[in-house]
C-alpha cells in the first residue's frame, strides 16, 4: 500500500512486475536500472538461481522525482515466474499499488501466458488486491521474435480492450520506459484518488500526467543507444545467487503459513477482547438496569451501553404507534428524533420496526438518498426488536464512511435488547405491583371505614338494647309491683270491702298498663312485617276519631279540622295509631289547664320534582317542650324525653318511633316543632295524592 509522509512530503509506492517465466520481467528492471543516474543509482537486488532465473525477487528502488509537490519513491519488484513458486509470488505481490504484466509474444507460449494471467488474478485475490481497482499495465514483450503473435491475438488471450498493451523488446530497451511510465501514471492516479481528504489537501495543484512526463524526461534521454547485449548485468548489481532453489520457497511458504496463522490468532484474540468488552458492558448494563425501577433509567443504561460499546453515533428506543408512526421514546448520543420525523427515513425505520428480527441498513445514502440532510454523517442503521413489546426496538446509528455493523455487533445488540426487555418487564411488573398496592391500600381504608360504620351501628344497637332494657324494666316493674302487692293483700288479709275494691282496681289498671306496653312492643316488632296493608281512601275526620279514641283523648283534646279536606289514601288503622301515639305523648306532658290541641289542615310536601299536596295532623301541647338537641333523638327507638319532673321514663320510647315509621310508609314523615308560646308541636304530614307511596309499592312488588 502506498504510504504518504506528509512531513517530509514523500510518497512511497510499490510496483510489481508479473508474468510467465522467462518472459522478460527481470530484463525490464535491468533496463530501468541502467537508465537511472549512475550517481544516485541504487543497487538492483536479484535473488537468482544459478541458471540466472529469478528465484525470489528483484528489487529496484526508483526515484520518480517530484509529482504534485511530493517526491515519489518507488520500489520495483519482479516475482519468480516458475509455476512452483506460488507462495513467493504472493508474498512479493502483497501490498502492490500497481502491476505490470510482461507477456511473451511467442505464440507457442500462449498457454504459459494465460496461466500466468490467471495466476495473477488468483494471487491478487489471495492478497486482497482487487483486480478491478489495482491498475494492471500489460506489456507485449519480445515483439522482435519471428512469428510473434499479433497484438490482437494477445489482447484476446487476456481479454484486453484494444490498444491497452504496450509493445516492447525489453532486451533492447524498447518499450520498457513507456511501459513503466504508463504503469506509474495509472498507479499515481489511483493513489491520489483513494488518498484521505486531509492528505489530498496537501497536494500541489497541477497536471499529474504532465509532471510525470517531465520527471521521466532525464531517463528517456539516457535511453540505451544499443540494443541486445547492451542490457547485461552490471558490476554494481551483482545478483545474489542461491544454490538450492526449493529451500527458499519452502521457507517462504511456511513463513506465509505461520503469518496467516498468526493473523488468524490475532484476529481471534481481538475478537475475544472485543467480546469480553461487550460482555463487561452488558453486565454493567444489567447491573445498572437491575438497580433501577424507572423505565427511563433502564432505557438510558441500555442505550448508553449500545453507543459506548459499538462506538455508535447514537442509539434510541423506538415504538410504532397505532397509526404506524415511529415514536422515539428515549435516545442516547446523537439525537435520533429527526430520523423518526423525516418522511423517507421514518418510513424506512417503520419498515425495519415491523420486521420480526434484527435488521440492518448498511448504507443510508443509498437507502434514502433524498434525506442526506437528516442522515448527514450517518452511515448505517440497525434495528433490534425488544420483546415482548410489539414493534418496540433498539435503533442504533453508525457514523463515518466505515460505519457498519459486523455480525458480532448485531449479536451484541440482540443480547442487549434481551437485557433491556428483562429490565422493562421488571419495571412493568414493579409498576403493576405498586398500582396493586395502592389499590389495596384504598380497599383496606374503604373496608376500615365500612367496619367502623358497622361498629358504630353495632354500638348504637347495643345502646338501644340498654335503653330498651332500662325503659321496659321500669315500665313493667311499676305495674308488677302494684299487682303483686295488691294481690298479696287480697290473698293474705281481710281488709274491708272498700280496701279490697281499691286493690282490685289497682290490679286492673296495672294489668291494662302492662297490656298496653306489650301491645306497643308487638306493634313495633311487626312494623316491618306489616307492609301488605292496603291503602284506602279515608276521610281525615275518621282518622281523628279513631286516634282520639285509642289515646283516650275523646273530649279532652281540642280538634280543629279544615272542612276543605277530601278523603286521601291511607291505611286507616295504622295512621290512627301514629296520631294516637302523638296524642298519648302530648297528654302525658300537657298541664291539666291547657288541653292538647289537634289541628288537621292541607299542606305542601317538598319533593325533588316539586311540592305535592298533603294532609298535616298537628298535635300541640303546652308542656315543657323539647330541648333542641333532643328534637331528633326522641324519634329513635327506646328513646324518650322522659318525665322532666320525676326523671322517670315515660313509656318505653317507641311511640314517636312507631309514628314516624307509619308516616314514612305513607310517603310522609313526623317532625317536632317548638310551639310558639311554649310547648311542643308534633306534626304528621302525608301526601294527599292518590299516588301510591313508594315504599308500599316496593313492598308489594316484592
Amino acid at each position, binding site marked *: 500500500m502506498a504510504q504518504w509522509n506528509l512531513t517530509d512530503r514523500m510518497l512511497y509506492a510499490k510496483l510489481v512486475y508479473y508474468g510467465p517465466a522467462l518472459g522478460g520481467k527481470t530484463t525490464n528492471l535491468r533496463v530501468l536500472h541502467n537508465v537511472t543516474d549512475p550517481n544516485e543509482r541504487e543497487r538492483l537486488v536479484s535473488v537468482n538461481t544459478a541458471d540466472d532465473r529469478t528465484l525470489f525477487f528483484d528489487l529496484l528502488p526508483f526515484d520518480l522525482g517530484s509529482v504534485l509537490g511530493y517526491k515519489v519513491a518507488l520500489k520495483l519488484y519482479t516475482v519468480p515466474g516458475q509455476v512452483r513458486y506460488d507462495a513467493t509470488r504472493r508474498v512479493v505481490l502483497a501490498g502492490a499499488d500497481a502491476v505490470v504484466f510482461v507477456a511473451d509474444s511467442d505464440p507457442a507460449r500462449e498457454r504459459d501466458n494465460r496461466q500466468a494471467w490467471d495466476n495473477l488474478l488468483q494471487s491478487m485475490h489471495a492478497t486482497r488486491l482487487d483486480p478491478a481497482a489495482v491498475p494492471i499495465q500489460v506489456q507485449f514483450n519480445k515483439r522482435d521474435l519471428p512469428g510473434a503473435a499479433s497484438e490482437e491475438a494477445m489482447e484476446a488471450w487476456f481479454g484486453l480492450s484494444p490498444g491497452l498493451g504496450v509493445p516492447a523488446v525489453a532486451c533492447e530497451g524498447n518499450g520498457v520506459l513507456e511501459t513503466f511510465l504508463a504503469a506509474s501514471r495509472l498507479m499515481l492516479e489511483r493513489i491520489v484518488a483513494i488518498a484521505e481528504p486531509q492528505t489530498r489537501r496537501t497536494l500541489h495543484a497541477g497536471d499529474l500526467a504532465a509532471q510525470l512526463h517531465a520527471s521521466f524526461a532525464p531517463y528517456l534521454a539516457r535511453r540505451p543507444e544499443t540494443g541486445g547485449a547492451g542490457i547485461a548485468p552490471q558490476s554494481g548489481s551483482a545478483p545474489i545467487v542461491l544454490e538450492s532453489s526449493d529451500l527458499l520457497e519452502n521457507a517462504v511458504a511456511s513463513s506465509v503459513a505461520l503469518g496467516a496463522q498468526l493473523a488468524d490468532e490475532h484476529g481471534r484474540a481481538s475478537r475475544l477482547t472485543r467480546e469480553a468488552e461487550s460482555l463487561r458492558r452488558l453486565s454493567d448494563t444489567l447491573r445498572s438496569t437491575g438497580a433501577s425501577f424507572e423505565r427511563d433509567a433502564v432505557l438510558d443504561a441500555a442505550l448508553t451501553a449500545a453507543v459506548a460499546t459499538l462506538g455508535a453515533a447514537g442509539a434510541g428506543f423506538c415504538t410504532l404507534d397505532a397509526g404506524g408512526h415511529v415514536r422515539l421514546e428515549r435516545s442516547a448520543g446523537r439525537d435520533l428524533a429527526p430520523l423518526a420525523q423525516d418522511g423517507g427515513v421514518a418510513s424506512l425505520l417503520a419498515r425495519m420496526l415491523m420486521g420480526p428480527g434484527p435488521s440492518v441498513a448498511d448504507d443510508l445514502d443509498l437507502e434514502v438518498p433524498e434525506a442526506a440532510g437528516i442522515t448527514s454523517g450517518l452511515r448505517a442503521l440497525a434495528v433490534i426488536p425488544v420483546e415482548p413489546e410489539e414493534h418496540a426496538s433498539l435503533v442504533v446509528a453508525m457514523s463515518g464512511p466505515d460505519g457498519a455493523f459486523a455480525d458480532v455487533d448485531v449479536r451484541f445488540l440482540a443480547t442487549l435488547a434481551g437485557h433491556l426487555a428483562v429490565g422493562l418487564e421488571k419495571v412493568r411488573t414493579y409498576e403493576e405491583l405498586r398500582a396493586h398496592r395502592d389499590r389495596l391500600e384504598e380497599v383496606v381504608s374503604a373496608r376500615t371505614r365500612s367496619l367502623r360504620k358497622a361498629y358504630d351501628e353495632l354500638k348504637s344497637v347495643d345502646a338501644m338494647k340498654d335503653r330498651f332494657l*332500662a325503659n321496659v*324494666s*321500669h315500665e313493667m*316493674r*311499676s305495674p*308488677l*309491683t*302494684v*299487682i*303483686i*302487692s*295488691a294481690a*298479696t*293483700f287480697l290473698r*293474705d*288479709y*281481710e*281488709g274491708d270491702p272498700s*280496701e279490697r275494691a*281499691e*286493690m282490685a282496681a*289497682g290490679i286492673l*289498671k*296495672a294489668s291494662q298498663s302492662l297490656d298496653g306496653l306489650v301491645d306497643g312492643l308487638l306493634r313495633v316488632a311487626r312494623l316491618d312485617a306489616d307492609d301488605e296493608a292496603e291503602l284506602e281512601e279515608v276521610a281525615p275526620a275518621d282518622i281523628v276519631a279513631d286516634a282520639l279514641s285509642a289515646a283516650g283523648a275523646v273530649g279532652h283534646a281540642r280538634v280543629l279540622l279544615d272542612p276543605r279536606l277530601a278523603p286521601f289514601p291511607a291505611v286507616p288503622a295504622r295512621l290512627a295509631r301514629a296520631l294516637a301515639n302523638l296524642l298519648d305523648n302530648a297528654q302525658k306532658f300537657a298541664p291539666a289547664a291547657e288541653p292538647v290541641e289537634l289541628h288537621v289542615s292541607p299542606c305542601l310536601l317538598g319533593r325533588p320534582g316539586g311540592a305535592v299536596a298533603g294532609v298535616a295532623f298537628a298535635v300541640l301541647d303546652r308542656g315543657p317542650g323539647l330541648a333542641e338537641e333532643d328534637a331528633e333523638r326522641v324519634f329513635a327507638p327506646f328513646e324518650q324525653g322522659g*318525665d322532666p*319532673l*320525676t*326523671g*322517670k321514663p315515660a313509656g318505653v320510647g317507641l311511640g314517636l318511633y312507631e309514628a314516624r315509621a307509619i308516616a314514612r310508609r305513607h310517603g310522609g314523615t313526623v317532625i317536632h316543632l317548638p310551639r310558639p308560646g311554649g310547648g311542643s308541636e308534633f306534626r304528621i304530614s302525608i301526601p294527599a295524592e292518590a299516588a301510591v307511596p313508594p315504599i308500599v309499592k316496593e313492598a308489594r312488588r316484592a
Partner: protein
Amino acid sequence: MTAPKRILIVDDDAFIRRPLEFILREEGYQPATAADADEGLRAVESCPPDLIFLDVMMPGKDGLTWCAELKSDPRYARIPIVLLSARGQERDRERALALGAADFLTKPYSPHELKRRVRELLGSG
C-alpha cells in the same frame, strides 16, 4: 306493751303506697304515707318514724337526695331508710348503701320480703 312502730311510706304512686300501707297495718305497725320528699319531711318533723320506705324516682326531690339529707341531719340520721327502686342498676344500690340507707330493694318486691326486712330492722310490730 310498747306503742306500735311507726313506718313512713314515701312514693308518688298511690297504687304502690296503698297495698303496702294496708299490709303493714295488718302486721301491727303504724304506717303513714307521703307522695314526695316535702310531704315526707313534714311527716318526719311532726312525728319521727322508726323506719322509712322511700321510692327513688319521685317528682321534685328524688329519694337518694332526700336520703342523704336525712342521714346528714343528726336529728334523723338514726332512722333506718329502705330505698325502693324500679331501676335495678347495681350502682344505684351501691350509692344508696354508701349514703347510709339500711337496704335497697328492687321493684317488684314481695310484700313478705318487705315484712322480713321490717322485722329485722325493728322487731315485730
